[in-house]
């Protein structure tokens, strides 16, 4: 764990091993727990940083992405020192939400935040962050949404027993958890939270001066400036352990918006063979080098659907650690597909890193879709919606509006599907009485 690691180097550098006292020897990937050498017995009290937790599998330090459902899919959270790449959806409607969740989580947890954008002023971005939800106000929202929700999730299911076997996606806030919060998109973050937080902004039009004194390096000037800015902040604020006097360790959350778009001065999205084709990949490599040697985590949104050269997309994916792709249904033929009726798009987990391990935490749930409700962004699995793990092997029919045909069979596996449909389609007055009895458990 990074905390143990930095504590360890602290005791080592004051000890006898002067040779190993290079202050740059901090990586985020150090194991928590008793070390084989036994040299760190003095560091048994772990310095824990707010808003982080160690991974169950490999002792890696994790931070929340701001969406507990996404944390679960990524194996508990985003590892400190890694890059989360979000492939933007076509019209860039939903990826800014994930970006904002990440930054809001940083502000609420007290982390330092660095926002880089070529389009919007970072101060404006921070103003528009969603407000965190406190536990009891969330419960009220939940009750308003679902009108006749009779079944409590923790009651042992009598009829829909197959659903109990399915993995649960986190749909409600875990009470008083310091890791991962829920946010209300319709409200703005309170001003005092922003003011008390430490944030740094990088707005490209301000930083780029008209006189380009470009060094002979194949990075575009925008990327060059951004890297220097990030390295400066990491070094000055001591996120790379270069300032051992600082007692309170903190995480730096970096958010880079629309990387690779023409606003950054990169024409990788405009032409297929561009001159600066290695600029973006070099940037990612050096950024990852910076992250690995400091206590920081980075989210990057990139319009990969605009990149003409597929080889570059493959290289970018290989150079990032975690890659999540968003695909929205707007304007595509999936919009009219009944399977995706209640969702706004699909979410693809394209890559999860193997850190300190041969294996990684990959969730079994594959068909994931997201939905933007009035106040929340939720991720659900479409396959559990469709048919559960029915062993009867038949394809379930979706009752179209007004049809009660499937209910006649009284098949146990069909009923749970209908009960969900009924919630959204019919009012309680219209449900035939025998179905109503089934659902309310009176049969």
């Amino acid at each position, binding site marked *: 764990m990074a905390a143990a690691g930095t504590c360890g180097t602290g005791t080592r550098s004051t000890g006898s091993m002067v040779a190993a006292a290079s202050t740059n020897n901090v990586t985020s990937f150090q194991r928590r727990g008793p070390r084989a050498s036994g040299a760190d017995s003095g560091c048994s009290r772990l310095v824990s940083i707010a808003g982080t937790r160690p991974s169950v599998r490999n002792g890696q330090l994790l931070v929340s992405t701001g969406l507990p459902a996404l944390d679960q899919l990524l194996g508990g959270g985003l590892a400190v020192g890694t890059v989360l790449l979000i492939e933007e959806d076509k019209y860039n409607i939903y990826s800014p939400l994930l970006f904002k969740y990440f930054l809001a989580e940083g502000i609420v947890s007290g982390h330092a935040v660095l926002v880089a954008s070529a389009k919007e002023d970072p101060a404006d971005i921070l103003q528009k962050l969603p407000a965190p939800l406190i536990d009891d106000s969330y419960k009220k929202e939940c009750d308003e949404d679902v009108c006749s929700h009779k079944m409590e999730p923790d009651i042992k299911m009598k009829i829909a027993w197959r659903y109990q076997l399915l993995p649960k996606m986190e749909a409600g806030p875990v009470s008083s958890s310091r890791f991962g919060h829920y946010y209300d998109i319709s409200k703005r973050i309170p001003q005092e939270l922003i003011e008390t937080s430490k944030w740094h902004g990088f707005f490209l039009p301000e930083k780029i001066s008209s006189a380009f004194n470009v060094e002979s390096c194949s990075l575009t000037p925008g990327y060059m400036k951004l890297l220097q800015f990030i390295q400066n902040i990491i070094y000055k604020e001591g996120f790379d352990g270069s300032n051992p006097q600082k007692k309170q360790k903190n995480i730096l959350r970096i958010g880079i918006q629309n990387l690779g778009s023409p606003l950054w001065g990169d024409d990788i999205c405009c032409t297929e063979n561009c001159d600066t084709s290695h600029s973006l990949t070099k940037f990612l490599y050096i950024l990852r*080098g910076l992250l690995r040697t400091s206590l920081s985590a980075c989210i990057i949104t990139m319009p990969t659907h605009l990149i003409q050269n597929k080889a570059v997309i493959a*290289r970018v994916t290989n150079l990032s650690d975690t890659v999540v792709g968003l695909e929205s249904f707007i304007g595509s033929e999936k919009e009219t597909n009944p399977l995706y009726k209640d969702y706004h798009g699909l979410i693809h987990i394209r890559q999860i890193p193997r850190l300190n391990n041969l294996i990684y935490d990959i969730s079994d749930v594959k068909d994931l879709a997201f939905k933007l409700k009035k106040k929340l962004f939720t991720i659900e699995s479409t396959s559990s919606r469709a048919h559960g793990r029915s062993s009867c092997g038949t394809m379930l029919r979706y009752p179209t509006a007004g049809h009660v045909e499937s209910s006649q069979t009284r098949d146990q596996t069909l009923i749970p599907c209908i009960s969900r449909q009924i919630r959204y389609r019919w009012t309680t007055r219209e449900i035939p009485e025998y179905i109503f009895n089934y659902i309310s458990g009176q049969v």
Partner: protein
Amino acid sequence: MFPELNNLLNTTPEGAEQEKLTLLCDAKTDGSFLVHHFLSFYLKANCKVCFVALVQSFSHYNMVGQKLGVSLTTARERGQLVVLEGLKSAVDIFFRPQEEPHPLQFLREANAGDLQPLYAFVRDALEPVDCGEAAWRCPVLLVDDLSVLLSLGVGPVAVLDFVHYCRATVCREWKGNVVALVHDSGDAEDEESDVLLNGLSHQSHLILRAEGLATGFCKDVHGQLRILWRRPLQPTTPRDRSLTYQYKIQDKSVSFFAKGMSPAVL
């Protein structure tokens, strides 16, 4: 090292072959478990290893190495292992320009650089010391991975030249081995990667190709490994023997089984 893979390849740490170029290749999956295998294999075989680690940090390899039974820090302290940490060195050379030639000098250059300084680094690391104090078995160069060099602006021909130089020095002159990992881009139409992969395939003696299953994700079978032996030493043996196995990666080892014979299915 994975004992099952040793059986498949018919090698042991004591009887490791020399003067070989082994190509590790992955398509649609992550082939880094092969790198961990060869790293621990050659360390256990008491060879002097130069590890060019461009993808992950040293502690990542160390952690996995400990699960496989070798300690990279001990090997580094003893002088058996020389590591070039790509990520850390890239940050060093990018932000603090240095006077003496750095192995990753090409990062600062605008045009496609060449890998001469990197070759010089490898040569200095693996040069056999004549006083014979430690008597390591043979020098081994392990590169993880070469496709990153393409992403960083080096042309495929320059990478092929680098491998050629390393082979001439390490394999032929010093009777050692070279192992390199390359990503196969598949249908991503990456011409540079194809040039590099084809060029290396023709030069190598042993190719291990890890592929993802054509049918997609599976919990019990993580992929398929194709082993191809090229350049047989005796002219009478049939050329290019090849084997295919499926594998599942576990916490500390990888289990191999014939196609379709996964324990989960039987």
